[in-house]
């Protein structure tokens, strides 16, 4: 049993996804490097990973969000970038969480639309989001009527 000594203790890593017709991950990276001040910035195929102490990371995230409020999305990541335990090169394939990203990125344009529409929304209008609902069953009397109409 080997002792585990963690690295980068006390840091946080956040994913910054950009899904915009006007900004690429490398555009975003360039802007991030400008204010990085020692915070680790790693460019990826979908955006960036930003690693450092929480205050610094939040400062950079805040700035990046301001560049395009409706097309930049952020979430926490447990591992630092390039960690061999999660790295595609070592696993042979993507870490499982990657497919979840792939799924959500596929519909993130709807979220962008939602964010863009928010400021114009009249206050007090109750939202009617897609929500789980029971599939309505055909009424038995109605079914009977259909059967009878077919038989005649």
């Amino acid at each position: 049993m080997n002792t585990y000594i963690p690295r980068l203790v006390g840091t946080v890593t956040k994913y910054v996804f950009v899904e915009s017709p006007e900004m690429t991950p490398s555009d975003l990276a360039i802007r991030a490097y400008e204010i990085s001040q020692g915070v680790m910035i790693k460019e990826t195929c979908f955006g960036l990973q930003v690693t450092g102490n929480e205050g610094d990371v939040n400062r950079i995230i805040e700035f990046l969000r301001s560049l395009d409020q409706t097309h930049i999305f952020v979430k926490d990541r447990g591992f630092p970038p390039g960690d061999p335990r999660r790295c595609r090169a070592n696993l042979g394939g993507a870490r499982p969480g990657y497919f979840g990203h792939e799924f959500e990125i596929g519909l993130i344009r709807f979220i962008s639309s939602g964010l863009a529409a928010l400021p114009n929304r009249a206050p007090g209008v109750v939202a009617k989001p897609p929500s789980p609902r029971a599939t309505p069953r055909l009424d038995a009397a109605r079914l009977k009527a259909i059967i009878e109409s077919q038989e005649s």
Partner: protein
Amino acid sequence: MANVFIYPTTSLILSDLVARFGHKPLSAALQVREIIQTPGIESPPLQITPEDPKKGLRWAAVEVPSGVRGRMAIYGPLLDRAEAAIIVNNAEYSFGCMGCARTNELLTFLIRKKGIPVLDLEYPTTEEEGVEFVAAIRQFLDSLGGGGS
């Protein structure tokens, strides 16, 4: 600022919206970060050791598979901290942390049992649904108070 449990706990969309509207998203990443930044016995990839499924016994009995209990050891502390929750119910393609349907059923049950405010949703499939989805989350989070973007 409220601690908002999100389901799927790995969701980019929910994490982003909760943080954007001024609250704290309780995502799996927070727990994974804590685990992998804690020294101990080496157990790649997630630093979950055979001790973790035992910690999971707090939420699930020993007859429940080890993978469920190990996952509960990750989410359990998040459940404790949750003051509200947003649940997207048709999250069928969330793998890894959210890869076990049985854990997910237990998790959403425990959240509902807790009696905190819960917003139930499904993923939007059109632009119009996207607009309502975002607006509903905004309204829900505003109703919790203490937020602000």
